[in-house]
């Protein structure tokens, strides 16, 4: 700590913050200063709104921001995935054109990967992009797109060659969302929330300059995006660190976060809310029922083991699939235990609902845990093939993609 305190970088950023930080600025005006100075994304290259610092140095900068309560750049969600991918695979022109809007939060982004016909099988995308002079014409459908209804841009994977095997015929594009060829519809889940969208493309247009990486290299570029997504890079923070601070910028930042977090309010329920089990059992008297106690113990133990497993940093790489399966077990066990505790009361909604609808939302949300972010089946494939080194599944989707059976 004392080392970081006296580190030249710390001294430098501290001086800069003292001269520039003003909580009564607008969020965008402040972030323009961040972009100009490079202090907002210090690990980005100097040419592109950063200072070319190492990860360790960037952490020192972040600590200084936190110390005085300075708001940082817009990073979370699809914005973060887009910028990380652009930094790795984008052209200089693309970086110049898009990174500033991302950093300042002026532009919002969405991810256009999943399709109705390719859920577990992302590389089986059939949304097509056909070359037409100096632009691409996009037709098809994407699904499970968070924030697409208010996004300015999307990162898009589309098929540009149907004669190549499926992983080789994909390309990666940046697409403007506000155009006549794109229709965004909200997609409601079984728990009543509408956190996602369906996006329909009918002769939508992508400029030729907005191809990221080489033509046909879309899968490699998408893997970069996916690896950042899996490592939790896009996770949205709650902004609790600014609790109690006042100023225009905090209000605007809170609003930005609220919009970003809106689709995720039910995620704690999806995980099963084991934290509520004992409280609810006491409240209902079910704590005196020995068989309910067995269910609670089973759920709490799974949750505890799962948390320990994650905390020990064992959850990286293919072992992340173990964490994911553990989370599914927790969710299932919690669903069982909450059902046993609440009995028929679990069914009620509105004013009669236990814990203001939370219990019902748990029961209707836990099934998503073993599906979202890669189904349990996909995780088990990964574990058995990459950790246990069992033989891979025989492939039935080789050869030209146009000949591969699909729905």
């Amino acid at each position, binding site marked *: 700590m004392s080392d970081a305190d006296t580190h030249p970088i710390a001294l430098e950023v501290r001086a800069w913050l003292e001269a520039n930080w003003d909580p009564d600025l607008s969020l965008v005006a402040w972030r323009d200063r961040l972009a100009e100075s490079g202090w907002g994304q210090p690990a980005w290259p100097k040419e592109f709104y950063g200072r070319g610092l190492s990860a360790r140095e960037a952490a020192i900068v972040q600590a200084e921001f936190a110390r005085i309560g300075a708001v940082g750049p817009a990073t979370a969600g699809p914005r973060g995935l887009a910028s990380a991918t652009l930094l790795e695979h984008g052209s200089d022109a693309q970086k110049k054109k898009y990174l500033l809007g991302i950093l300042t939060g002026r532009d919002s982004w969405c991810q256009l990967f999943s399709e109705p016909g390719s859920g577990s*099988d992302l590389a089986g995308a059939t949304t097509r992009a056909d070359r037409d002079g100096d632009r691409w014409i996009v037709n098809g459908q994407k699904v499970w797109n968070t924030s697409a209804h208010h996004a300015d841009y999307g990162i898009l994977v589309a098929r540009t060659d149907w004669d190549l095997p499926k992983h080789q015929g994909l390309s990666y594009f940046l697409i403007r969302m506000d155009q006549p060829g794109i229709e965004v519809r909200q997609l409601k889940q079984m728990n009543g929330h509408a956190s996602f969208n369906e996006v329909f493309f009918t002769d939508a247009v992508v400029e030729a300059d907005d191809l990221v990486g080489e033509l046909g290299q879309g899968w490699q570029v998408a893997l970069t995006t996916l690896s950042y997504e899996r490592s939790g890079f896009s996770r949205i923070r709650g902004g609790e660190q600014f609790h109690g601070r006042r100023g225009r910028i905090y209000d605007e930042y809170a609003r930005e976060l609220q919009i970003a977090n809106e689709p995720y309010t039910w995620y704690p329920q999806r995980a099963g809310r084991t934290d509520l089990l004992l409280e609810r059992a006491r409240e209902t008297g079910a704590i005196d029922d020995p068989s309910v106690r067995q269910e609670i113990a089973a759920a709490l133990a799974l949750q505890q083991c799962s948390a320990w497993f994650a905390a020990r940093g064992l959850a990286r790489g293919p072992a992340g699939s173990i964490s994911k399966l553990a989370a599914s077990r927790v969710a299932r066990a919690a669903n069982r235990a909450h059902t046993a505790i609440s009995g028929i009361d679990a069914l009620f*909604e509105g004013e*009669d609902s236990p814990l203001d609808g939370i219990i019902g939302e748990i029961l209707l949300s836990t*099934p998503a845990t073993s599906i979202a972010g890669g189904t349990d089946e996909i995780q088990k494939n990964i574990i058995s093939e990459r950790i246990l080194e069992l033989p891979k599944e025989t492939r039935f989707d080789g050869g030209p993609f146009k000949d591969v059976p699909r729905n």
Partner: protein
Amino acid sequence: MDFAFTEEQNQFRDVVARFCRDKSPSPTVRKIIAGERGFDPEVWQQMCRQLGLAALHVTEQSGGAGFGAVELGIVMEELGRNLMPVPYLSSVLATTALAQLQDAETRDPLMGAISGAERLATLVLDPRSGDPVSRVLTAADHTIAGTAGAVLDGASADLVLAIVADAEGYGLHAVTAPADGYRVRPLRTMDGTRRFAELRFDATPAMRLGTLTDTQVKRVYDTALVALANEMVGGARMLLDSTVEYAQMRVQFGRPIGSFQAIKHRLADLLVDVELATVAAHQAAAALAAGEDVSVNASLAKFTASDAYMNAAREAIQLRGGIGFTWENDTHLWYRRAKSSEVFLGTPAFHRERMIQELTA
């Protein structure tokens, strides 16, 4: 005990199945879920008047249609398969309670009104266990008082029966709505195909219809359990069938997902769940029809069917992936029904305990 459906029973099933399929396609179910009432009165009147299903399982001498519990099970199974929202089980509860009465003059007019759909009847049950003896209502001077939570179809019913213990035994009381001091508060639930309401009785005029014995109360309870178990296996079977069909059709990685051995084995396991639950439900209905003491089998069928149904619902969603978690896909309608069936009339653990109690009594 050996059991097989007769030719007549199979034909009866075909008739009921066709009716349910015709009247309860998914868009209709969704419309009813979104609506206030919870069922289509016209369809209900057809069920009662044309098909004569409301007092189907009650003997003719008790004012019913003279069929047995096997036919009751058949109706429930087909309703469950098609997720058909009708106030059928509440009517079954009421007619079963009424059928215990010896006094035909009291019994038969009510039975007639129910089976002709002139009255929509229900019976107050303990919300947690489904026990037909109410622990919260009190009866005195031709009135009853208290608040009954989670009464099945309580908001639609205009003939509410309640069993309240008094000095003479288990008194069966009837309240005819509207009535003084009678207030109804519909409860919103996650399963819009099965409605509940809280009923308040504030010195509400009630008629004491007669007295039930221990055995009779138990019979009412067991009938409810057996009916629900049969409904559940219908729903579970539908989920199994539709999921197998989906697995045959849905292609990922260039092949139907039903060709992946892990999926095949889980569907095989699910078939075993459903087959075992089905024999349990059918055997319990047959034993009930034969007049045997079915408490052990009724509880066994309830928890076996419930576990199979919940497992089917979970797998049906899981194997559909993201699609199965959408509102638009129908699977969650059955999931919700499976959940509401799991906790209605007592949880699986409650009935495992009851089974042992009955076995060691």
